[in-house]
């Protein structure tokens, strides 16, 4: 099963949980070790980079320290993927969910096309997806799933 990581997960991993939950790296590592490829949208990388710049701009980190975080983002073993048709899928999801914007819908669209789980640290997205987008999981939910013993079928 493929895992699609959204921006909140990329940020949490690149900062080792300094910005986001500490178990994001563990969740992605467990998924990769179990043979589940981890992917993201190009938008997720852009959003993560924007968050690093904002951290420097707001004074949370020293000016220039965002370069370190960028290096961690660029080296992430998570390939970005996007193809024709994903935009239409994102629009359809946004309409179905009643969302005014397509940002979260883009991550959902990639997950739907790949038949993947969408991994997020964004509890607001997780709540909003509740029941209607059953492939959206938090990092702790993914860790629990990957720890489940294999079924006997």
């Amino acid at each position, binding site marked *: 099963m493929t895992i699609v990581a959204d*921006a*909140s997960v990329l*940020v949490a*991993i*690149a*900062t*080792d949980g*300094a*910005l*986001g939950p500490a178990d994001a*790296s563990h969740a*992605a*590592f467990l998924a*990769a*070790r*179990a*043979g*589940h*490829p981890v992917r993201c949208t190009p938008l997720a990388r852009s*959003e993560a980079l*924007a*968050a690093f710049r*904002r*951290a420097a701009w707001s*004074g*949370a*980190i*020293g000016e220039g*320290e965002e370069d*370190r*975080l960028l*290096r*961690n983002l660029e*080296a*992430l*073993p998570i*390939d970005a993927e996007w193809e024709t048709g994903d935009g239409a899928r994102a629009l359809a999801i946004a309409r179905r969910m009643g969302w005014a*914007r397509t*940002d979260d819908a883009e991550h959902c669209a990639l997950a739907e096309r790949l038949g993947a789980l969408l991994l997020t*640290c*964004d*509890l*607001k997205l997780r709540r909003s997806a509740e029941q209607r987008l059953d492939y959206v999981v938090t990092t702790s939910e993914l860790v629990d799933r990957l720890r489940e013993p294999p079924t006997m079928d």
Partner: protein
Amino acid sequence: MEITVPEAALRANRTQETIRRWIWSGRLRSRKIGNQHVIEEGDLERMLGGAEAERWTRYLALRDENLAGLSAASRARLGAIDLGAWLDEDRDAH
């Protein structure tokens, strides 16, 4: 469950040629049905998992080295940020 070479290529996000090379080199077990190789899905997952785990281990070491240069004060301030609110604000500001 057994899968064909084209299915394995899709699953692994690699070319069919790469999957065949893994089979010929003995890295990936397969059996032949007629003139077609089939692969046990679990074997492919274990192989991919091993390679991916190595990739992640190398990444995490590099990341930690990079983060070691970040000041303790910066790390603490990062921990106080509500990233979800930031992402929402950035989107609204576009």
